[in-house]
C-alpha cells in the first residue's frame, strides 16, 4: 500500500501511520508487520534465531492450525479406542488385513498419537513464542502516550473540518478560543474512554487520542487462556479417575479400588486417594411410552435411587439421573446404563442350593431383550454354564423365534441353554462375567441339542438335563403384587468420576471467550482534534485512524464532531459556520488517502 504514496506523504503522516510503541507487536509476516524477510545469519545462533522466527510467524501458526484441523478428521472416520473400544474390535474383525497397518499409524488412537501431539505441541510452542514478546511489548504500550498529531490531518481517510466564528463583541482572541476548544475536545475524548495528550505548537492546538488497548489485551488473554486450557486438561488428567460399577437393586458399593468393576486413573492418583463412602442402590425407576402412543416403547426418566453412607456413618438419599449426576464428596456419579438382573437359583440333584444370584443381563435391543451368563463353579459333578436370554415382554416373532416386544415387564420370560464342562476360570486368566467360554464344555440343552432350552416365567422352576438338578427363576414381586411389573430386579450401571480440574478448564475456556470478544469487537483507533486560530475564527480539524478492523470509525468521527460542536455551543464564545463543514468523503481525492488497516 505504501508504494502508492509519495515520499512527502510518507514523512507527513509518519507519526500516525507507521507503527510505534503503542501499536501491538506483530510477527513480521503479519499484514501490518514490517515484512522484513529475515535471512538466516551464518552460524548456529543465527540459524536458531531464524528458525525461531519462522516458528513464531503468522504463516506457521496458520499452517499448523490448518494441519491440526485435517489431522483431527481421521478420528471421526475410524473408531477410537478411547471413545469406542468395541467399535475398534469390530473394525478389526471386519478388516483383519488392513487393521495392523492402520493401527501402526495410530489411526485408532488419533488424539493420543505422536503425530497429532506433535502438531498441537508445535502450535502451542509457536503460540507461546509469539505471545511472550507481545505481552512485554503491550505492557509498555499500555503506558505509552498517544503519538504526536500529524501535520496534515486531511490526508487521513476519516477527516472532517469545521469553522467557528468569534462574535465581534467577544473579548477573547482566536488563539485563546482555539485552545479552549481543544480543552473541550480533550475532556470529551477522555469521557469517551480515550487516552489523550495535548500537542500545541505556535497557533496550532491539538489533542491526540487513542483508545482500544483492550483489543490487544483481549487477544493476548485469548491466546494465553488457550494455553491454560491445554495445561489444565493435560495436568488435570493425571489427577482424575473414572470407574464403573454395576449395581443390582439392593446391592451396596464401597468406594474402594477393589469394589470397582473397572477403573481408569491418572498417574498421580494414589491407591488410597478415594474418599471412603458406601452407596446402596435402593431402586431403579424407568418409564416407558405406552403402546399406541408416539414413540411407543421408548424408555425414559431413568433414575437410580441410592442411599449414600459417608465416613461418619450418616446416610442420605439421592438419585442419579441422566444430565443430573449425583455429587458425593467431590466425586460425580453418572448413570451409564441399566437393565434387568433376573434372580436365579440352581439346585443340584440332592436339592442343595449351589447357586443363587441376581445376574445382570446386558440389553441387546431397544425392547430390552437381554443376554446373561450364569456360572456354577461348585456343587455339581461338572462345572455348569448357562447362557440365558431374558425377554421382559415375550412374544413370538415372525419366524416363530421369541423376541421382546416391549421394554417393561409385561410377560417376562427367561430361556436358558445349558453347558457342562470346564468354565476355564481356574487357570487364573481374568474372564468377563458376561461371556461364557464354551471351548471346554459340552452343550446339554438348547438349539443343536436334543433337549430344548429351559423356558421359565418368574416363580417357575425347571429341570436341568441329565437329572443334574433344577433351576429356578425367582419372582421378586413384593407381597400381594397383581402383575409382573416388579417380578425382576433391575440393575444400574454407574460411573464414578473425579476430576477437580474440569472447573479450571471451564474458567480458562470462558477467559478465552471473553478475550476473543474483546479482541474482535473493541475498536482500536486514533483520533485527533486540531484547532488553528485565524483572524476572527477558529479552524477545526478532526481525523480518525483505524488500527485494525474498525467498521464504525466513520460514524465515530461524525459523532465526535457533532458532540464537540454541541459542547462548544454550550460553552459559548464561538458560533459554527454551517456551510463550511465538510467531510472527508469530498475533500481529498480517494487515491491520496493514507488508509491503514
Amino acid at each position, binding site marked *: *500500500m505504501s508504494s502508492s*504514496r509519495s515520499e512527502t506523504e510518507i514523512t507527513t503522516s509518519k507519526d500516525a501511520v507507521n507503527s510505534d510503541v503503542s501499536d501491538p507487536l*506483530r510477527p513480521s*509476516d*503479519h*499484514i*501490518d*508487520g514490517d*515484512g522484513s524477510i529475515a535471512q538466516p545469519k551464518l552460524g548456529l545462533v543465527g540459524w536458531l534465531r531464524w528458525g525461531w522466527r519462522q516458528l513464531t510467524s*503468522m*504463516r506457521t*501458526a*496458520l499452517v499448523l*492450525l*490448518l494441519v491440526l*484441523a485435517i489431522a*483431527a*478428521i481421521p*478420528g*471421526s472416520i475410524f*473408531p*477410537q479406542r*478411547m*471413545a*469406542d473400544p468395541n467399535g475398534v474390535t469390530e473394525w478389526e474383525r471386519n478388516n483383519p488385513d488392513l487393521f495392523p497397518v492402520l493401527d501402526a499409524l495410530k489411526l485408532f488412537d488419533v*488424539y493420543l498419537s505422536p503425530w497429532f501431539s506433535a502438531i498441537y505441541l508445535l502450535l502451542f510452542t509457536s503460540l507461546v513464542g509469539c505471545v511472550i514478546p507481545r505481552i512485554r511489548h503491550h505492557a509498555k504500550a499500555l503506558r505509552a502516550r498517544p503519538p504526536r498529531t500529524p501535520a496534515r490531518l486531511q490526508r487521513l*481517510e476519516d477527516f472532517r473540518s469545521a469553522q467557528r466564528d468569534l462574535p465581534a463583541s467577544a473579548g477573547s482572541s482566536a488563539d485563546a478560543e482555539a485552545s479552549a476548544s481543544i480543552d473541550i475536545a480533550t475532556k470529551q475524548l477522555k469521557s469517551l474512554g480515550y487516552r489523550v495528550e495535548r500537542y500545541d505548537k505556535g497557533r496550532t492546538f491539538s489533542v491526540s487520542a487513542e483508545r482500544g488497548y483492550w483489543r490487544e489485551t483481549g487477544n493476548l488473554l485469548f491466546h494465553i487462556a488457550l494455553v491454560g486450557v491445554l495445561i489444565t*486438561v493435560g495436568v488435570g488428567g493425571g489427577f482424575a479417575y*473414572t470407574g464403573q460399577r454395576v449395581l443390582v437393586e439392593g446391592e451396596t458399593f464401597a468406594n474402594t479400588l477393589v469394589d470397582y468393576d473397572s477403573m481408569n486413573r491418572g498417574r498421580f492418583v494414589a491407591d488410597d486417594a478415594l474418599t471412603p463412602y458406601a452407596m446402596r442402590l435402593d431402586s431403579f425407576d424407568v418409564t416407558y*411410552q405406552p403402546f399406541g402412543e*408416539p*414413540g411407543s416403547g*421408548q424408555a*425414559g*426418566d431413568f433414575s437410580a435411587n441410592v442411599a449414600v453412607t459417608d465416613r461418619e456413618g450418616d446416610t442420605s438419599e439421592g438419585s442419579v439421573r*441422566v*444430565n*443430573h*449426576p449425583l455429587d458425593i464428596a467431590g466425586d460425580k456419579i*453418572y448413570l451409564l446404563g441399566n437393565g434387568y438382573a433376573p434372580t436365579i437359583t440352581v439346585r443340584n440333584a440332592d436339592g442343595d442350593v449351589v447357586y443363587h444370584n441376581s445376574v445382570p443381563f446386558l440389553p441387546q435391543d431397544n425392547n430390552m431383550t437381554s443376554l446373561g451368563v450364569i456360572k456354577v463353579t461348585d456343587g455339581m459333578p461338572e462345572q455348569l454354564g448357562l447362557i440365558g436370554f431374558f425377554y421382559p415382554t415375550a412374544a413370538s416373532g415372525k419366524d416363530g423365534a421369541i423376541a421382546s416386544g416391549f421394554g417393561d415387564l409385561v410377560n417376562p420370560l427367561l430361556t436358558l441353554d445349558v453347558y457342562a464342562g470346564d468354565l476355564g476360570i481356574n487357570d487364573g486368566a481374568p474372564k468377563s462375567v458376561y461371556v461364557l467360554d464354551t471351548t471346554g464344555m459340552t452343550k446339554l440343552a438348547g438349539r443343536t441339542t436334543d433337549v430344548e432350552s429351559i423356558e421359565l416365567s418368574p416363580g417357575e422352576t425347571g429341570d436341568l438335563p441329565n437329572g443334574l438338578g433344577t433351576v429356578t427363576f425367582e419372582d421378586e414381586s413384593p407381597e400381594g403384587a397383581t402383575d409382573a411389573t416388579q417380578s425382576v430386579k433391575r440393575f444400574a450401571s454407574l*460411573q464414578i*468420576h473425579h476430576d477437580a480440574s*474440569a472447573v479450571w*478448564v*471451564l474458567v480458562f*475456556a470462558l477467559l*478465552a*471467550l471473553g478475550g*476473543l*470478544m474483546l479482541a*474482535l*469487537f473493541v475498536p482500536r483507533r486514533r483520533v485527533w482534534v486540531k484547532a488553528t486560530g485565524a483572524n476572527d475564527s477558529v479552524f477545526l480539524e478532526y481525523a480518525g485512524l483505524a488500527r485494525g*478492523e474498525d*467498521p464504525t470509525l*466513520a460514524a465515530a468521527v461524525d459523532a465526535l464532531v457533532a458532540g464537540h460542536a454541541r459542547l462548544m455551543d454550550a460553552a459559548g464564545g464561538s458560533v459554527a459556520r454551517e456551510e463550511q463543514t465538510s467531510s472527508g468523503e469530498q475533500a481529498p481525492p*480517494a*487515491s*491520496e*488517502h493514507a*488508509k491503514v488497516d
Partner: protein
Amino acid sequence: MPDLDVLSPILLWTAIAIYAAAFVAYAFDLARRSQVTADAKSVREAELVVAAGGATPARRAASGVPASGAPQRFVMARIGTSLTVLGFLFHLAATVTRGIAAGRVPWANLYEFAMIGTLLIVAVFLAVLSRIDLRFLGTFITGLVVVLMGASATNFFVAVVPLMDPLKSVWLIIHVFVASLATAFFALAFALSVLQLMQSRRERLVVEAAERTGAGFLRTLPQSDRLESLAYRFTIIGFILWTFTLIAGAIWAQDAWGRYWGFDVKETWTFVIWVIYAGYIHARATRGWRGNPSAWLAIVGFSAVIFNFTIVNVFFKGLHAYSGLS
C-alpha cells in the same frame, strides 16, 4: 382446526413454496442487473481500472451498492425480499406450532434442527438487510434454504415423540440454538466469500482488459475488498457463537456423559470447524493470505459446517445420535 402437528408441516411446505418464489424473483433481479449494467459498462469499467490500478479503492461502496445503481432498478429484488419476509412468517409459524405440539423447544431432532437452522439463516439475512443492502445474496440464501428445508422435510421428517433422556436439559435450548445461529452467520459469510472470489477475478480481468469479465451482475456489486470485509464481520460473529457452542456443548457433555470432551464424532467436527475458522481469521491477518486464500478458507469452513450437519448427523456413528431417524 387441524392438529398442530398436522398444521406445522403444511405451514412449512407453504414457506418452502414462497421461498422458492422469492428465489425466482431474486434470480430475475440478478439477470436484470446483468442486462442493465451492460449499458453502463464502459463508464464503470473505466472507474474500476483506476481503482484497481491505483491505491486502495475509496470507500465508495459504503452502502453496499454503488451510487450508480438507481433504486427502481431493483424491483425484482424488492419482490424477492417481500416474499422472503412472507415465507419467513410461515416458516416461523411452522416452527412455533411444532414447538407447541411437542411441548418443548422445536430443535431436538434432525428435521427440527434443519427447520430452526434455516429459520435463523433467513432471520439473520432479513435483519442484516435492514441495515446493509445485501439483496444480491437473496438467490443464495433462498436457494440454500429451499434445498435444506425441502430435503429435510422429505427425508428427515419424524412425528413428535418424547425426548430421550440426554436431551432433557437446558443445554439443549442454549447449545443447539446458538450453534444454529452461528451457522446462519457462517452461511452469509460463505455467500459473500464466493462473491468475493468472483468479484476479484472480475477485477483482475478488467485490469487485464480481458474480453469477458464474468457474470454481468457482478458489476452492480460492491468491490471484492468490501465483500471481504463484510464476510469477515459475519464470520467473527459466527466464530464467537461457535466458540460458545463448543464450550456449552462441553458443559452439557460433562453432565450427560460424564466427561466434557471425548472426541466423539460430533465433537471432533465441531472442533475441526472451529480450527478452520480460527485459521481463516489468522489468514486475514497474514501477509499473502488476505483476499482469495482466506476466502477459500471461509468456503471450506462452511462446507465443513454443512458436512457436519448432514453427513455426520446421518451417517456417522457416535453419541450424538439425535437425528431421530432409525
